[in-house]
């Protein structure tokens, strides 16, 4: 039997995940509610002027997204673990990276949907109006989400059979993600306030994405087979 190509496997796994998620809406609902709670609580903590809100919104948005993403990422492999899919996958000739990529893209879609839904809330609660162009914010959003999700999916796979697995994921993910978080927060703030050009940070995010996607792809098979 010829091994199926990476693209074919990724596509079918991704389609399955999206279909399952669409039917249950587990991940999206819990993420959304969690993010909403974070936004509301932060709203009570600060009462910024329009000027101030442009300075702090970047940090607040990405902290909220980070926490919500962890909620989603913790569930990424849960279904597979329950149904022994990982063992079956290990034995099959399908390339390991295909499953990894489909998980990353699935989480990427969920977190992006979350961001799109959260943005109007933020604009409303903080009376936010960006000085810089919105398309730059969109680029930051895409690169930043990928940075969180690619490492997050990898570390979620690492954590699945550890004790306290829900805590293990953020424990590993946050320190490693610090350069990306710095870049996404500062890029967002610089676009919102219009004070500096965000392009250095956008480039840093892009390089971070390339480097860590490569590292994840190279090492994923090792983690999958580590039994």
């Amino acid at each position, binding site marked *: 039997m010829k091994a199926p190509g990476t693209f074919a496997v990724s596509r079918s796994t991704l389609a399955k995940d999206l279909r399952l998620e669409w039917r249950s809406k587990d991940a999206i609902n819990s993420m959304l509610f969690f993010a909403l709670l974070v936004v509301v609580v932060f709203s009570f903590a600060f009462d910024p002027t329009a000027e101030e809100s442009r300075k702090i919104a970047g940090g607040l948005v990405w902290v909220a997204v980070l926490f919500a993403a962890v909620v989603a990422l913790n569930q990424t492999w849960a279904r597979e673990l329950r149904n022994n899919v990982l063992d079956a996958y290990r034995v099959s000739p399908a390339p390991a990276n295909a499953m990894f990529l489909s998980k990353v893209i699935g989480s990427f879609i969920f977190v992006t949907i979350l961001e799109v839904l959260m943005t109007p809330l933020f604009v409303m609660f903080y009376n936010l109006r960006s000085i810089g162009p919105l398309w730059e914010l969109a680029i930051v959003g895409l690169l930043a989400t990928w940075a969180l999700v690619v490492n997050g999916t990898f570390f979620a796979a690492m954590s699945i059979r550890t004790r306290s697995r829900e805590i*293990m994921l953020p424990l590993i993910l946050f*320190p490693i993600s610090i350069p990306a978080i710095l870049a996404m927060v500062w890029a967002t703030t610089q676009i919102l306030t219009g004070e500096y050009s965000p392009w250095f940070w956008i480039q840093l995010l892009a390089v971070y994405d390339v480097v860590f996607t490569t590292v994840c792809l190279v*090492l994923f098979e090792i*983690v999958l087979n*580590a039994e």
Partner: protein
Amino acid sequence: MKLKLTFFALVTLGLLSYALYMALVVAPTEATMGDVQRIFYYHVPSAWMAFLCFFINAIASIWYLAKRSQTADAIAVSAAEVGVVFCTIVLLTGPIWARPVWGIWWTWDARLTSTLVLWLIYIAYLILRRFSTSGRAPVLAATLAVFGFFDVPFVYLSIRIFRTQHPQPVIAGGEGSGLDPTMAKAFLWNMIAFTFYGLLVMWMRYRLELAERSIEEAHAEKALQEGA
């Protein structure tokens, strides 16, 4: 082996004592900061040792992933633990020094932040090892070490660039700039002494790790025999 270790330990003790004497007695008092500056003789060698240990861990982790050598993994965990010890000291002595000299406990500059991130990554490394089953722990930890190895340059670079855009009110200036020759000697002796000390403790931890593994193997063999 035990004899070599004891000899090495005695030499290290001698070096540490002499280096302490150099740092507290021989080295002259600094003009502007006063005696507080002497923290430098402990703070910087600790930072050097932390980075050396983490570097050894990175190499050992890559070696482990390539060859699955038990020696490599034992070295990796020893280096990680000793590295965390030294890094903790850096993060404690740094603020203790900064407070009287610059009036602040902490600042987000490239060096301090990178050190903090390294510390966080390796604490996570040690927790990951403890919380994983004994079969998987070495592989997962080694993978995390590789991530850390690629990550730290990003941390350092991103904050350096941020600080050119948003310069700090306080210059965390080079401690090595314009060092009086006696001070340089005291500094060098402490560097050597702590390098010996770090290697000694890593060696001790390595031996313990090997001992622990042979005990585990003995237990497993016994269980096998009893089952048979």
